[in-house]
């Protein structure tokens, strides 16, 4: 289970990182979302992965650490709000700048700069 979990987290963060480095706002927002998923999974695993454990301490048996669960809940809520804000902001940037490049430049200008 550990290796599957680690691979999932790694693939999600790699995809998120790649998308954040793209030039247009939509992939960047999707990348941020993927990265926050990866972070949530990572936080979740920090209490140690257990199966069939009680959520509260129940005698000497296995238990699932409840603190990472609370942290993930907080992180999800904050991440959700931030994603909403990033979406609205990129829509506004599209409106104000007339294109969806993160630097707000038009295609032609960039080609001219390239030459």
């Amino acid at each position, binding site marked *: 289970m550990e290796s599957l979990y680690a691979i999932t987290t790694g693939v999600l963060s790699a995809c998120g990182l790649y998308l*954040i480095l793209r030039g247009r*706002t939509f992939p*960047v927002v999707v990348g*941020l979302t993927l*990265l*926050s998923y*990866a*972070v949530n999974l*990572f*936080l979740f*695993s*920090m*209490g*140690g992965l257990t199966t069939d454990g009680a959520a509260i301490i129940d005698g000497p048996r296995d238990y699932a650490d409840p*603190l*990472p669960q609370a*942290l993930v809940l*907080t*992180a999800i809520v*904050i991440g959700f*709000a*931030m994603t909403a*804000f*990033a979406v609205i*902001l*990129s829509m*506004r*940037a599209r409106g*104000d*700048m007339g294109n969806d490049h*993160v*630097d*707000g430049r038009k295609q032609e200008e960039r080609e001219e700069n390239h030459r």
Partner: protein
Amino acid sequence: MMQHLIVLPVVLPLLTGLFLLRGLHGSTRLKRVLGVASTGLLVVIALALLLRAADGEIAYYAMGGWQPPFGIVLVLDRLSALMVLLTAVLALGCVIFACGGDDEKGSNFHGLFQLQLMGINGAFLTGDLFNLFVFFEVLLLASYALLLHGGGKSRTQAAVHYVVLNLAGSALFLIAVGTLYGATGTLNMADMAVRLGELPAERAGLVTAGALMLLVVFGLKSAILPLYFWLPRAYAAAPAPVAALFAIMTKVGIYAILRVYSLIFGEHAGDLADLEQPWVWWLSLATLAIATLGVLAARDLRLLIAYLVLVSVGTLLAGVGMGTVEATASLLYYLLHSTLVTGGLFLLAEMIGLQRGKAGTRIVKGRPLTQGGLLALLFLVGAMAVAGLPPLSGAIGKALLLNAATPAQQPWLWPLLLASGLGAMVALSRAGSTFFWRNKSGERSGERLSRHQWTGVGLLLAASPLLAALAGPVSDYTLATASQLANPDNVVDALLPDAGDAP
């Protein structure tokens, strides 16, 4: 009442902010009175906290009565009291300035401003690593909205970069906090410091990775060299009172570096102690050099001041990198001075821009200023203070820092710090002479500035002569603060009285 005083800097702006966000349409006057009154009250509370912390006692406030290390605590020591007071004074100047008309250029200025204060104060007071993340998010979310206040192309564009970078930074913060929790099993900073002392050797690598990731996050907030590129544009684009308040935001990052690496990775940590020192020292010197070039190259007064903020960041972090008690004491003095003066200069730049009409704050010939005499005087005071000319506070702060450098550090710090002062002086005198002397012949047609704006700028710039006059008591206090920081045992004993007996 007294034991609840610690939580008031968080609760008061929260309540005021929520009330102000509740759509008070048309009642501009009520919003302004509430905003200024709440910020003024915050100054009083912060003074009371400072007096309480001054005797060296470390007090904590356990949220919901859950005792540390289990619950979330707010910790009051000399450093956090000082930072809360600094925030309150800066915010008072900004909010008074904003009442001169900037607050009505968009919606909900005063409500967002209070929420931002709540985030900043919370970050300064908290004693819990995850709670620090939450307060960072509160202050960032409010700052995103404030940066966009008033709208406009350049603001939107700067905001896109600022928001995306900070969201990526938040993700990294969570990974770092998760790693540290996984390795130590606690989030309370004092408890983590104790547990690092008995860390099994195989987890040292994990903790080092977590600690250095935290340094990247705090470096992004405080705008250290490879992570500062968002700052000049965002600060130059932000509305003036917001840019002035942002002067404290980089200091939140510096505070977090000071707090986390002195408490958690202090003397308890064994091999892991002071692991940030070499990184911070060399990167801060590089920041200082690059920011000086930026100051000289800037063609707009607001951009110039944004680079001056970067110069102050480099200077302060060099103080952190020196790692002695004297260096910490002098950097705290310099921090008070640089925050208030750069905040005041941002406000002043806006006033100069308003009077010059189309030329704005660009450093080019423009029409003569209506109230040029008084503005020029204030500009002179601000420029002298920020460039570090005697007799104002900048000179004292720099002298303290230069004096605190050990012989091995002097050859690096002295030339860079002195050159940065010279660069600031050259750039500011060029800007000042262009604004006030090299005018086109034309009519003085700029609007007269409102008295709110004069009051706000006056309040912040008056801090410099005041800090110079009170340099003795203030530097005594910062020295006491630095020695308190150097002994993390004090915090551990105050928060976890039975830590020694724990298994």
